[in-house]
C-alpha cells in the first residue's frame, strides 16, 4: 500500500491515526478485558465450560505448534506429555507439601520436558512419518505406566487423581473465577515467553530445521540442539497444560482422560488454527471448544425428536472431519490466516485496489 497517495481522501486520515496507534494498545485492551472485566461480568458456566478449557487447550496447542508448526516434527503424543505434567504436579504437591502450587506446576512441566526429550531423541535419526511411531509409543507407554503403577495416583485403584487445594500466595483460587484467573495468568506468561523464544535465534533455528534440516545443517545450525530444545519446550507447555487441565478445569482426572483422542484434539487445534502461528493455537482452541457447544445446542433446538442423541455425536464427528478437510483445502494456514486477511480487507475498506 502506498500511504502518500491515499491520505488525500478524508476517511483515510482517520485510518492513518488508527495505524499509528502504538502496537501494544489492542493487546493492553485485551488484557484489561481478560483480567479485569471478565472476572466480574462472567458467570460460572462461562468460566468452567468455556474459558478455562479454551485457555488450557490453547496452551497445549501452543506447545504442539512449537514442535509441529515451527520445528516440523509431527507428534501424536501431546496428551501423553499433558498426562505427565498433570501426574507429576500432583505428586510434587502430594509428596512435598511445602512446595507452592506454581512451583509444583513448573516442576510438572519440567518432568514432561524430560519425558518429551526422551521420546524426542529418536527424531535425530528418524524423519517424517516414521517419527509418529516415537510419539505414539510415548502416548501408549505413558498411559500404561500411569494406569499400571498406582504409586503415581497415590494408590488409587483406577488411577484417578484429585486436584490439590489451589492456593497461590495465600489466595484461595478454588472458585471458577479464581481458577480462570490462575489459568489466564499462567497462559499469558507462557505465551509471552513463547513469543520471545520464537523471535530469538532459538526460534529461527527451529524454523530452519522445519524448512529443511539438511540445509540447516549445512548452514551450521546445530540441529541436534534445536530438535531437543523444541521437544523440551513443547513438552513443557503440554505438561503445564495437562496440570491445568486436571486441576483448574476438571478437578479430578484419570490417565484415560489423556488418551489418543486428546492428542488428536490438540493436533486439530493446531491445524485448524494455523500451523506455525502463535495466535493460531488460540483460534483453534476457541473453535474446538465452541463447536461442540454450538452443534449440541443446534441439535437440541432443531433436531430434538428427529435424531436420537447417539447420532448427534456421530454427526458431530462428520462435521468435525469435514471442517478439517475444508480448512486444509481452503485455508491451509488456518483461522489465523483467515483473520489476517479479513483484517487486511477491513483496513483497505471501502477503497479496495
Amino acid at each position, binding site marked *: 500500500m502506498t500511504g502518500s497517495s491515499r491520505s488525500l481522501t478524508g476517511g483515510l486520515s482517520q485510518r492513518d491515526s488508527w495505524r499509528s496507534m502504538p502496537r501494544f494498545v489492542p493487546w493492553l485492551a485485551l488484557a484489561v478485558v481478560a483480567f479485569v472485566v471478565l472476572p466480574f461480568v462472567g458467570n460460572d458456566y462461562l468460566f468452567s465450560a468455556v474459558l478455562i478449557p479454551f485457555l488450557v487447550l490453547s496452551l497445549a496447542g501452543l506447545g504442539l505448534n512449537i514442535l509441529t508448526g515451527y520445528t516440523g516434527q509431527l507428534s501424536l503424543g501431546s496428551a501423553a506429555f499433558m498426562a505427565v505434567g498433570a501426574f507429576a504436579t500432583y505428586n510434587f504437591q502430594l509428596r512435598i507439601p511445602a512446595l507452592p502450587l506454581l512451583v509444583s506446576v513448573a516442576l510438572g512441566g519440567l518432568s514432561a520436558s524430560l519425558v518429551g526429550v526422551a521420546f524426542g531423541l*529418536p527424531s535425530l535419526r528418524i524423519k517424517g512419518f*516414521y517419527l509418529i*511411531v516415537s510419539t505414539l*509409543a510415548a502416548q501408549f*507407554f505413558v498411559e500404561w505406566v500411569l494406569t499400571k503403577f498406582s504409586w503415581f495416583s497415590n494408590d488409587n485403584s483406577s488411577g484417578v487423581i484429585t486436584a490439590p487445594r489451589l492456593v497461590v500466595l495465600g489466595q484461595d483460587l478454588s472458585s471458577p473465577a479464581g481458577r480462570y484467573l490462575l489459568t489466564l495468568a499462567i497462559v499469558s506468561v507462557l505465551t509471552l515467553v513463547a513469543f520471545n523464544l520464537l523471535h530469538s535465534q532459538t526460534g529461527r533455528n527451529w524454523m530452519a530445521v522445519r524448512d529443511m534440516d539438511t540445509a540447516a545443517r549445512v548452514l551450521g545450525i546445530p540441529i541436534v540442539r534445536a530438535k531437543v530444545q523444541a521437544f523440551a519446550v513443547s513438552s513443557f507447555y503440554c505438561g503445564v497444560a495437562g496440570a491445568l487441565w486436571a486441576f483448574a478445569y476438571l478437578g479430578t482426572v484419570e490417565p484415560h482422560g489423556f488418551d489418543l483422542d486428546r492428542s488428536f484434539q490438540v493436533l486439530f487445534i493446531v491445524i485448524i488454527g494455523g500451523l506455525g502461528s502463535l495466535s493460531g493455537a488460540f483460534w483453534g482452541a476457541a473453535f474446538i471448544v465452541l463447536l461442540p457447544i454450538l452443534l449440541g445446542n443446534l441439535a437440541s433446538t432443531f433436531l430434538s425428536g428427529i435424531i436420537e442423541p447417539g447420532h448427534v455425536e456421530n454427526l458431530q464427528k*462428520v462435521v*468435525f*472431519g469435514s471442517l478439517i478437510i475444508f480448512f486444509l483445502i481452503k485455508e491451509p494456514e488456518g483461522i489465523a490466516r483467515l483473520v489476517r486477511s479479513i483484517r487486511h480487507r477491513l483496513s483497505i475498506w471501502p477503497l479496495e485496489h
Partner: protein
Amino acid sequence: MQFFFEVLVGGLLAGLMYSLVALGFVLIYKASGVFNFAQGAMVLFAALAFVTIVEHGVPFWAALLGTLLIMLVLAVAIERIALRPLVNRPPMTLFMATLGLSFVIEGLAQTLFGAQVHGLELGIEDVPITFAGVSASKLDLFAAGTAGALVLVLALLFNRTRLGLALRAVADDPLAALAIGVDLRRVWAVVWAVSGVVGLVAGLLWGARLGVQFSLSLIVLKALPVLIIGGLDSIAGTIVGGLLIGATEKLAEVYIGPAFGGGIENWFPYLLALGFLLIKPSGLFGEVRVERA
C-alpha cells in the same frame, strides 16, 4: 517347548492379520505419497456395510459384490472431494486430511449402519486345528493365506503392469508424472479403490474375529508398527513386519508381560518398531531417500 511354538505360531498368524490392514496403507503411500490414517475407518466402513447388507437377507456373494461397489463409490468420492483439491500439497497436509477423513467415515458408518455390535459369519470357524502337535486357529490360517495371496497379486500389479508403473511414477513425483501424461485423477481413484477392497477383506476377517463394531477402526494402531517396521512403501515389508510384530508381541506378552503386570501389548510393538527404526530409519524394506541440501 510346545507351548512356546503354539504361542509363536499364534503370534505369526495374528501378525498376518495386522499385515492385511497395513497393506492398505502401503498401497496408498506407494501410489500417492499419502499416509492414509483413514484406512482403519475404511475397514470399519466396509465391514459394517457388509454386515448390514447381509442382515437384510441378501446372500453372501451378492452382499460382497454390493459392498465392493460401495467401497468403490467411497474411494472415488474421497478422491474427488478431499484429495483432488490437495494435489501437490506437503505430505503432512495430506496426512491431516486423512485424519479428518477418518472422522467423517467413522461418523458416517455409524450413522448409516448403527453403532451396535454385529456378528459376522464367514463360514470359517474360529476353531483350532492341530498339525504336528501345534494347533492354530482355522480362521487365522485362512486369513494368513488371504494375506499372502493379496500381497502376491498386489506385488504383480505394481511391478508388472502399466498401471503399476503409473502408480509408482505418481508416488515418485506427481508433477513429473502429470507432465508426461499420467492421468493423476484416475490413478488416485484406482489406488483408493484397491485399498478400499483391501480394507473390505481386512474388515471381513477382523469382523469375523472380533465382531463388527467401532473398535475395528482401532486396528489401525496395531497396523502402524507393522507398517513402520516393514517400510512405508514396501508391500512385502508388511508381511515381514506383521510376522515380526505378531510373534514378538505374543511372546513378550507371555514371557515378559507378567513381570510388568501385563497389558504391555499396547505399547510393546511401538517400542519394537522404534528399535528397528533406530537401526534402519526407513524400515526394513522401505526406500531410502538420499537427501541433498
